[in-house]
């Protein structure tokens, strides 16, 4: 079953008078349960693709179907709901809220989903146990190591059981050891049937994926063929 399908995806940016084409007709299909890496040099448009796949942004033209929904047809206001229940984000710089405890950070997506406070606490504790942080629930993010922080971020990303897990350079700020642990977690999630999409520079990291999609100048290089 395909979970992501894009057709002639185009994204233009207006930078003053200059119009920049960041994506130039991306046709892409990702099956449910795949572990995919998106690679490309900086400025290739991979971040833009990532934003559109993650419903943070809308394409200028073209189609995007996510888990059966024609997302490209939806207004911006409807995208928040899609982000909330279908997408889990993991960022390079973790992006945890510094004033909130680990537990509260992981509870956030559930709060925006309208889950009761008791239920979301239980669920967040459960997920944090899965990533091995049960003993850190009341800690603030800055009391943890980088690897631990990224594990919290992963917990936050999967707490809502999303359709896809989107990771943007998830190991970029980590040492080899911690990075390896994080990739191990992604691998586990993939083994359990989750769809994982990872953007990276690092060919070693990308090699952990089932398939590599290469982006260059806003177009797919040969990833689809190589898959």
């Amino acid at each position, binding site marked *: 079953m395909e979970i992501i399908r894009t057709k002639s995806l185009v994204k233009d940016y207006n930078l003053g008078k200059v119009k920049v084409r960041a994506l130039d007709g991306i046709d892409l299909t990702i099956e449910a349960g795949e572990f995919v890496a998106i690679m490309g040099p900086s400025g290739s448009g991979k971040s833009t693709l990532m934003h559109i796949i993650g419903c943070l942004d809308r394409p200028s033209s073209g189609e995007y179907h996510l888990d059966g929904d024609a997302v490209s047809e939806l207004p911006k206001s409807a995208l928040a709901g899609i982000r909330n229940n279908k997408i889990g984000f993991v960022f390079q710089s973790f992006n945890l809220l510094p004033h909130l405890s680990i537990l509260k950070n992981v509870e956030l*997506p559930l709060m925006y989903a309208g889950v009761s406070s008791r239920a979301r606490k239980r669920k967040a504790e459960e997920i944090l146990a899965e990533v091995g942080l049960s003993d850190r629930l009341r800690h603030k993010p800055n009391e943890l190591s980088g690897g631990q922080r990224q594990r919290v971020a992963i917990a936050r990303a999967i707490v809502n059981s999303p359709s896809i897990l989107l990771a943007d350079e998830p190991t970029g700020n980590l040492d080899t050891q911690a990075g390896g642990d994080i990739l191990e977690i992604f691998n586990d999630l993939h083994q359990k049937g989750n769809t994982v999409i990872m953007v990276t520079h690092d060919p070693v990291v990308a090699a952990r994926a089932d398939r590599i999609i290469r982006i260059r100048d806003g177009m797919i290089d040969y990833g689809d063929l190589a898959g």
Partner: protein
Amino acid sequence: MAISLAESLQMGVADIATRKVRSAVTVLGIVLGVMCIMVVLAILAGMNQSTMEWMTERGGLSKVEIGFNWQYDFRQGGEAKFSLSELRTLKSLIPEAKAFNPSISAWDAKTRYRDQYYNSQCIGVYPDMQIVENWYPEKGRFINEIDIRENSNVIVIGSKVAEHFFGTRDPLGQSIMLNDQMLRVIGVMEEKYWENPGGGGMWGKNALDYMNHRNFIPLSTMVNKVSPGSKIDQVEIIAHSPEDALALQKKLGPIVLQLKDGKKVFRVSSAQEDMVQMQKNAKMFSAVFIMIAAISLLVGGIVIMNIMLASIKERTREIGVRLAIGARRLDIFMQFMVQTVLITALGGVFGIILGYAILDLVSGYLEMAMVANIRMIFTALLVSVGIGMIFGIAPAIKAGNLDPVVALREE
């Protein structure tokens, strides 16, 4: 579906708790503004209350007075004086009056009982004095129409006078000398007492104690026997209602003018008119202070708006993260709206507490009545919440409109 208000409130409290100092600084203007409103409203209410009490005690708002016109230039002739027959005419022309009491004071009159002298004010009056002042004898009787007609040698004495001359003995039937007239005591007035709300200072606790030193004799006796040639220059009239008093005041003006051959030697005033004037002054006073409070609240509001805008700028990335994990624009809008309103409401509460503390301190010091009530607290709270809503909108809209991609890129 957005997150609940309770959720937003909880988030707002947590946000404020993490940024205590900033929140305190943010809200300083509101605290001061609310405090100012509280104090001014309480002072005004206090002033109003004591004025009303005083007025009521002194004959109420139905009183009309004819008195010496200080603005009249007496070189143009005329004399501020009523004869007894003029008074009879005047009285017959205003049958709608409830009470009519001309009076004349003999300040130089010394009362004597046997060989004791006592300096007390003696006033020649009509029987209606009782209605005008709402003051009646405690013992014996007051002066009546027969006493007026007959120029009777009778006197009604004040409680302090009775105490001075007679101690515990019965004053009724005793004789008192006033100038060269021997007068029979026919009554003793009840004691007048009105506690000054500020404690009274130099006048003692009882603001009306001076009245207890007064004696009353028939007006005719005063003019014809005790103090011949003295001038009756004051008439107090009570109407049936404050509105009637205003009508009576209007009617009396021309009558008095005609009686005195067109010379404006007398002025006709009413308590109602004075009251209206006083209320007008109070309103002016309060308007000025409310303006000052409003300006300080406005400035406070602008400060809040700016600090919230700065705070949102600083928290752009956080907002981006929240948007990425599923917050709707309305959620973000509400988060900051609720936070601003919470801060200003909190400021309002502190302002009220501070206002109370100041009232407590100042009212003791100024010996002034100040009245704070629930309505003021409610007003102050409402105003501070309103300020939060008005000045919180722009920052909240700005936060809610952030683009997630741009917000996430913010360092």
